[in-house]
């Protein structure tokens, strides 16, 4: 694709569009990518990141990560930090699937242990973790109780025995954003979500059994510190978010912001998906609170799924999950906005950091990291396509320049409709079986849309984050079992 004529390379994997690129930009835009990845980005990505740079209160740069692609308002892979006092909050900077994120759990099993029971494991996981269109949970949660759940997050689950206290320590924000008031969410949002706790969803959401081959360890010291120390060790990774609840919260507030943005606050944006409100306004604060509820729902959702995974492994291997070494490595969001402290021009400032398709990547020593990871930095889980593989990275000091943000996945390069025309679900299933990946899916057509060729190369994306100095590669996992919603 042709690049904007005025884009400048400022470091081997960092590109800049100055404020002169487009009228109204408050800050320059920076895109983190190798030249090959940059050239593969749709032209609209450059327009979108420039539009983000026009939002009030934005600090330093509007960023786009190496897996950036066409989003709404913000590009996917977009990061923007706003001053809370005169900046805005924008649902478009977070996405409809609030706290869509990744969770990774290890086992003490090897591929040799798992291979003979792989089909049984995948099929049982497919039964216990509902997925697909409208997939509902077998958990009986009343609407009233659900309102408590969205205020308490993953701790609501652990208090009921669906998880271990250590899981909370190894979850971003300990699995609960404080200040979530369910009074700020609509009954409609609750109705869409209360039956979906512990469900995967569909699209690019998945649950995978993966293997870590010794040759795929990039840093042995860090892998050891993360509990990855057995040759051909098996791990489980999954990707999902706040389900219908979060989608409705985003939809509700997008509509509210569109009504008041110009008439009440005099804000004008170029794309309705960039609708926003001053962070300190009544509407801004109500959305922030409702968004936190959705963040907490997603943490609880992934907590229940983790519990189901432990139950299934325990059932199939006839051992307790504790004896199977099924500790959570980490859980991290990639669609979120949070108040965080970052240095700006040498002074620490509290900023509202929007990450849409971008993962927080705290470097070593940062407050907010569990003690076990204080020395190595925050684990960053990067999900690849179902055919290729996924990565575990850690945050590094250099990520301070992106407000501690990095990539989140491989990023699509082909539309779903086109992928459905090019790939056949059943053939793909067979191809993956030949490669040693056993898949159970609720939809063959949905599977075709997720073919590996529809995505960027995950190796290129993680390579770019390392080249740009915003994260460090630790390990690459290859899939052997996959549940696709």
């Amino acid at each position, binding site marked *: 694709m042709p690049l904007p004529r005025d884009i400048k390379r400022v470091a081997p994997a960092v590109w800049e569009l100055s404020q002169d690129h487009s009228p109204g930009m408050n800050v320059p835009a920076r895109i983190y990518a190798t030249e090959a990845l940059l050239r593969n980005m749709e032209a609209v990505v450059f327009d979108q990141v420039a539009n983000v740079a026009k939002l009030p209160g934005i600090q330093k740069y509007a960023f786009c990560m190496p897996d950036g692609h066409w989003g709404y308002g913000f590009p996917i892979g977009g990061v923007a930090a706003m001053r809370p006092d005169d900046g805005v909050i924008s649902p478009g900077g977070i996405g409809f699937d609030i706290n869509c994120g990744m969770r990774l759990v290890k086992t003490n099993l090897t591929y040799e242990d798992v291979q003979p029971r792989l089909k049984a494991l995948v099929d049982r996981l497919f039964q216990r973790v509902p997925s697909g*269109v409208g997939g509902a949970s077998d958990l009986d949660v009343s609407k009233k109780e659900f309102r408590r759940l969205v205020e308490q997050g993953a701790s609501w689950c652990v208090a009921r025995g669906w998880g271990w206290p250590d899981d909370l320590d190894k979850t971003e924000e300990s699995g609960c954003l404080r200040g979530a008031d369910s009074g700020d969410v609509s009954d409609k949002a609750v109705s869409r979500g209360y039956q979906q706790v512990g469900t995967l969803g569909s699209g690019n959401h998945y649950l995978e059994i993966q293997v870590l081959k010794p040759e795929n360890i990039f840093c042995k010291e860090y892998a050891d510190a993360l509990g990855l120390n057995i040759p051909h060790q098996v791990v489980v990774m999954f990707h999902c978010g706040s389900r219908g609840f979060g989608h409705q919260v985003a939809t509700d507030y997008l509509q509210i912001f569109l009504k008041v943005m110009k008439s009440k606050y005099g804000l004008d944006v170029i794309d309705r998906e960039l609708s926003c409100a001053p962070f300190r306004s009544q509407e801004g604060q109500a959305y922030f609170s409702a968004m936190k509820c959705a963040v907490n729902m997603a943490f609880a959702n992934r907590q229940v799924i983790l519990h189901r995974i432990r139950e299934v492994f325990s059932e199939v291997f006839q051992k307790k999950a504790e004896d199977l070494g099924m500790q959570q490595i980490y859980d991290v969001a990639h669609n979120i906005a949070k108040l965080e402290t970052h240095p700006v021009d040498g002074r620490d400032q509290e900023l509202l950091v929007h990450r849409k398709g971008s993962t927080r990547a705290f470097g070593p020593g940062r407050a907010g990291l569990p003690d076990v990871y204080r020395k190595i930095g925050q684990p960053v889980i990067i999900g690849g396509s179902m055919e290729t593989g996924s990565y575990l990275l850690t945050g590094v000091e250099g990520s301070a320049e992106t407000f501690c943000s990095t990539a989140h996945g491989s990023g699509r390069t082909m*539309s779903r409709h086109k992928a459905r025309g090019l790939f056949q679900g059943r053939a793909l299933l067979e191809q993956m079986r030949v490669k040693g990946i056993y898949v159970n899916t609720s939809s063959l057509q949905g599977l075709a*849309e997720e073919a590996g060729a529809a995505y960027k190369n995950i190796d290129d994306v993680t390579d770019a984050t390392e080249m740009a100095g915003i994260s460090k590669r630790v390990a690459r996992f290859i899939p052997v079992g996959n549940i696709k919603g």
Partner: protein
Amino acid sequence: MSFRYLDDIATADIAFLAQGPSLETLFQSAAEATVLVMVDNLKSIQPRCQRTVGFQADDVESLLFNFLQEIIYYKDAEQLLLVPDAIMIQTCPGGYDLKSVLRGEGIEPRRHHLIVDIKAVTMHLFRVTPNAQGWEALVVLDI
């Protein structure tokens, strides 16, 4: 039904262009395009239950946006696949008034060939505009 899916818009999601000689037929086409993102054959959805929806909106865009959101809402809240059986749109003092009967049934993965879940109707490039043949709508659905 009159719609086509668009390949070159919103890589990670699904976009469609729907048309109709009247607002009612446009809304019918847009609703069918939306449901066909989730299930591959409308004929597989039996009219076993119905839900009535009715609301007003300032303009035709908000009217279509809210209408499609209702279909997505019932898919999550009641696990129902619904398609409009009747749509009535009238102008009213505040803008437009819509009443519709949606018919369908509970999701049955073994009988309905399900494809992919829709998270939301987005405002990205969203438009409802009159054209020489009647009306046209561009819709991008978040997947």
